[in-house]
């Protein structure tokens, strides 16, 4: 999305609030944001380490572009049942320069205490942390598992979604249904999902979360101006998370079908909270046409009231080039990746 459109989008709720202020009512507009300032480096210049589908990437020289971003969100309450939300994120993605993307722009109708319907640009919640993977502060790890999250690069869906919450014997079952289309501009390609249908079941019981999700869509891939034939694709995901008695666990198993061999990805992350310091370790694996394994250790330190400091080291073992960019002839893993980050919310 063009920066101008984004600015207009973010200004819309402000305009609404001004209109309301003129009626003598208090403005119900909230501006909030999140961001990460990070440095990322590796032990080789034979290939570039990047987040999925980013152009560029880091080599031995520490770079900010891999893991840094900043997001701004405006929420405007129109009345008891209607609200508007706009969100934009600045990060490096399709080019090796920071650019803005409009990630959310929807109207939300609260039909009842348990049912909400949103129309517009809504999050594409394919996997467990898909819809907040850009919010470092909301996550334990410095970046989501590359092996799983490379499978669906798109962040948002233009269409509608529905969120229905039920109490089931002391647990909460949330059913999310979404329909629409989604386009992501990525390094060297544009990925569009049309006729995308998303169904997720999220069961929460105290500190435990169990999630099952399924997305079906037709995918159109444009590479260098050439449109490849449409493909029927599907993503299936099972996820588990817990945060109990200072033990933090997060794990997912995902299958992407449609392009060549089915691509399967999974990761397990475990950590233990010592007050404000949360060390963690993770193992992730991707199999299929692109294959890679990563072992990570890191620590999240909640050093400030609205900011944390993270440090993470990954040992990445790609098969061939794996998910690395610009591999030079003869490039072979494993690659050690280091990163330090400050995540904040406001």
């Amino acid at each position, binding site marked *: 999305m063009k920066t101008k459109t984004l600015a207009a989008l973010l200004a819309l709720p402000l305009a609404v609030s001004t209109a309301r202020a003129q009626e003598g009512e208090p403005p119900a507009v909230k501006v*909030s944001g999140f961001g990460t300032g990070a440095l990322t480096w590796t032990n080789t210049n034979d290939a570039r380490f990047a987040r999925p589908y980013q152009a560029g990437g880091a080599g031995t020289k520490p770079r900010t572009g891999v893991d840094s971003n900043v997001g701004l969100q405006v929420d405007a309450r129109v009345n008891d049942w209607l609200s508007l939300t706009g969100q934009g994120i600045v990060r490096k993605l399709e080019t090796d320069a920071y650019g803005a993307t409009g990630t959310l722009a929807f109207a939300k109708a609260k039909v009842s205490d348990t049912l909400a319907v949103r129309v517009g640009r809504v999050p594409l919640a394919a996997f467990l942390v898909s819809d907040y993977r850009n919010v470092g502060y909301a996550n334990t790890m410095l970046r989501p598992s590359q092996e799983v999250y490379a499978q669906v690069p798109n962040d948002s869906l233009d269409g509608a979604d529905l969120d229905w919450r039920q109490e089931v014997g002391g647990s909460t079952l949330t059913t999310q249904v979404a329909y629409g289309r989604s386009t992501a501009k990525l390094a060297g390609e544009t990925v569009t999902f049309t006729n995308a249908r998303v169904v997720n079941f999220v069961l929460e019981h105290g500190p435990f979360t169990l999630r099952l999700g399924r997305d079906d869509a037709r995918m159109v891939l444009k590479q260098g101006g050439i449109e490849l034939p449409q493909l029927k694709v599907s993503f299936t995901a099972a996820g588990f998370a817990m945060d109990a008695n200072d033990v933090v666990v997060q794990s997912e198993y995902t299958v992407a079908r449609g392009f060549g061999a089915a691509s399967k990805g999974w990761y397990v992350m475990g950590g233990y909270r010592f007050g404000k310091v949360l060390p963690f370790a993770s193992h992730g694996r991707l199999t299929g046409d692109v294959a890679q394994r990563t072992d990570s250790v890191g620590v999240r330190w909640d050093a400030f009231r609205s900011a944390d400091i993270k440090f993470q080291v990954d040992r990445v073992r790609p098969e061939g080039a794996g998910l690395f960019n610009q591999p030079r002839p003869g490039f072979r893993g494993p690659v050690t990746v280091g990163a330090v980050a400050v995540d904040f919310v406001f």
Partner: protein
Amino acid sequence: MHNMSLSFVLAAILGIALPARAEVVVVVNPNAPEASMTKEEIAQYFLGKSGALVPIDQPESAPIRAEFYKKVADKDPSQVKALWSKLVFTGRATMPKEVANSADVRKAVAANPKAIGYIDRSAVDATVKVVYAAP
């Protein structure tokens, strides 16, 4: 059973030995149907897992806020903030409304039959109903 009576005795001794501390109680509107609530029920409103009642929060700098979340949800302020940032930045919920102190929470709860708040016991009066007292 032995352990239980021992902890009662200990609690009594500690209660006498310690200087008077702020006691956190959870209050709702007198017209709300609930007579009492469990801490799990209360936590779901303050962690954005249920929209049936409207939570009223105290300022981040208020000690009662940290005490409330620790005792009711067993969470530190940063854990609570991380949870809310998931909900806020996916557009699923907005942060609870914050007011200045216990007296203002009481006013907000008294004015809204669907509101729920936590206040110092000393701030309780007939305009609100206590549904939970933190141990």
